[in-house]
């Protein structure tokens, strides 16, 4: 008998820029950059500012369309926030871009005091939210929402896909006040146009109904929840998906109503974020506080630890946020 040596597995990469699109998935290129450039053509008050990451946050599309309205602030995130505050004070609407880790960790005080405490009309759009890079903790914003949820006045948005991002830019701009937007950049999957859906700031939307499980999700985990809901059918499990792109203020009425409508459903909150301080805890507090108690409540999110470096698919599996893991864990919970 001949022993076949398995082909050497393709080496995985812990590169900074990794695509979250699955093989063959339909994508749209730089949805944020194009949407902002288009909106800016109608709104002369919009300016773009970046901390040496225009190219990596799709703001270069805006820069190409409106070169005289783009400000390169250098790799200086604290300055980015302060200068954004100054621009807003002079009547402009600055859109600031960097990576989520640097806006939230390094520049927190500046975003908090210079911008939010004054209620200034500044938009902060940040790439690499949650676990969307394999580069290690320096670039993985596993707790950006936890950091920011405690900041009064700040609106927090976690769009699902390219469609969500395209639709969110205008309402975010029309809302007067500081907004933090989690950004998917580069070639971004497009899925929500297959559903009866439009983005509304502050609103959660039911994307599909199902009797056994209710996924409440935000960001790219809505994509995963939708895929999981499809896959769960094979096990005769019907799953609903409530997409909750605005994390703060939370659409508590819609969430409670969805849970109260079928209290027998297992509620699974899925987010691309630490299980601490994100959507899961916000939903739990809202439900418990209003006496809306589902038959079961579970969280799918990142563990409370510094995450590994590695290839994104490996890490999403390892930490339980890949579609396969969402399916497997949900089935386990239903069995238990």
């Amino acid at each position, binding site marked *: 008998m001949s022993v076949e040596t398995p082909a050497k597995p393709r080496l995985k990469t812990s590169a900074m820029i990794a695509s979250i699109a699955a093989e063959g998935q339909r994508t749209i290129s730089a949805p944020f950059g194009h949407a902002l450039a288009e909106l800016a053509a109608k709104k002369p008050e919009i300016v773009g500012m970046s901390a040496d*990451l225009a190219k990596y946050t799709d703001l270069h599309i805006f820069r190409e369309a409106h070169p005289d309205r783009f400000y390169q602030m*250098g790799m200086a995130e604290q300055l980015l926030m302060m200068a954004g505050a100054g621009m807003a004070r002079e009547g402009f609407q600055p859109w600031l871009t960097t990576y989520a880790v640097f806006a939230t960790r390094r520049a927190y005080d500046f975003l908090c005091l210079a911008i939010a405490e004054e209620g200034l009309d500044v938009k902060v759009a940040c790439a690499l939210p949650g676990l969307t890079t394999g*580069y290690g903790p320096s670039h993985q914003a596993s707790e950006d929402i936890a950091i920011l949820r405690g900041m009064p006045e700040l609106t927090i948005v976690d769009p699902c896909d390219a469609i969500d991002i395209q639709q969110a830019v205008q309402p975010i701009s029309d809302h007067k006040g500081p907004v933090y937007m989690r950004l998917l950049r580069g070639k971004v999957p497009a899925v929500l146009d297959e559903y009866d859906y439009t983005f509304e700031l502050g609103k959660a939307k039911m994307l599909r109904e199902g009797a056994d499980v209710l996924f409440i999700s935000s960001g790219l985990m809505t994509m995963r929840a939708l895929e999981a809901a499809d896959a769960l059918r094979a096990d005769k499990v019907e799953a609903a998906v409530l997409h909750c792109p605005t994390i703060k203020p939370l659409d508590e009425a819609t969430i409670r109503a969805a849970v109260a409508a079928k209290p027998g459903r297992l509620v699974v909150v899925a987010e691309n974020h630490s299980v601490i301080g994100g959507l899961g805890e916000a939903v739990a507090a809202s439900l418990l506080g209003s006496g809306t108690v589902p038959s079961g409540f579970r969280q799918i999110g990142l563990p409370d630890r510094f995450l590994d470096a590695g290839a994104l698919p490996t890490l999403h599996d390892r930490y339980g946020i890949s579609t396969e893991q969402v399916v497997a864990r949900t089935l386990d919970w239903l069995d238990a």
Partner: protein
Amino acid sequence: MSLSASPSTPTASDTNMPLAELSRRAYHIRRHALKMGQVQGQGYVGQALGIADVLAVAYFRALNLRPAEPEWEGRDRFLLSIGHYAIALYAALIEAGVIPLEELETYGSDDSRLPMSGMASYTPGMEISGGSLGQGLGIAVGMGLGLKRKGTGQFVYNLLSDGELGEGSTWEAAASAAHWKLDNLIAVVDFNNQQADGPSTQVLGMGDIAAKFEAFGWHAQFVDGNDMEALVAAFDTARELDDPRPRVIVAQTLMGQGVPFLETREKTHFIRVDEDEWDKAIEVLDTGFAAAAA
């Protein structure tokens, strides 16, 4: 060809290391970096090729180290704040014998000790976790103070980038180092005139970098970071100088140095190398070194 990576002597460096030997080490560092880039089909090789001469002087002339004992208490500390330069430091650590040559094959792969961004928890010889840029110089201040408290006479080095000069934290550290008269702190700035969105001089013009450090109370030297003789003189001066000020060497480097077709390629933060170009890059590096050595 084979490279003998592990020196048999317990210390890799020698304060009298001759120029020709340093050039050979720099060539090996470049070669290891290209090999790692080839493993993943990507990597910050432009930066690695540019900074290889600095690392050769640091690891084979300036730093007091024991490759077999990377945590030896008596070592000089070398802090890499630019996590994305990890590929360059891995190459130097391989050449110094801290990391085995074979491990280069695992670069950037799942569960490797050599992730794409440098982190202390993963790699022997990596003193700090870099990547969130602008933290290295401040940590060096604390280590400089700590080493002085212990009175054991080591140096702490920080390799930082021109992009990091944009961070306010770098200048908080610069002011503090001068205030505390940290003559045991040696900063090396890689002035490659590149950062993520373009040339550093256009992204955030810093003017005369050496003069800025001088104004902050530092002893500053500006050198051609790809001129081995100039680098040796600058490192020797920084170490031997009788002067209470912290020292900075602003090293002007050329991204892609040693591989002519990368030297002239359009400069970007992440220089593109096509799949079929890796072997060619190594080949021209080899011939270039052979010609220079002849």
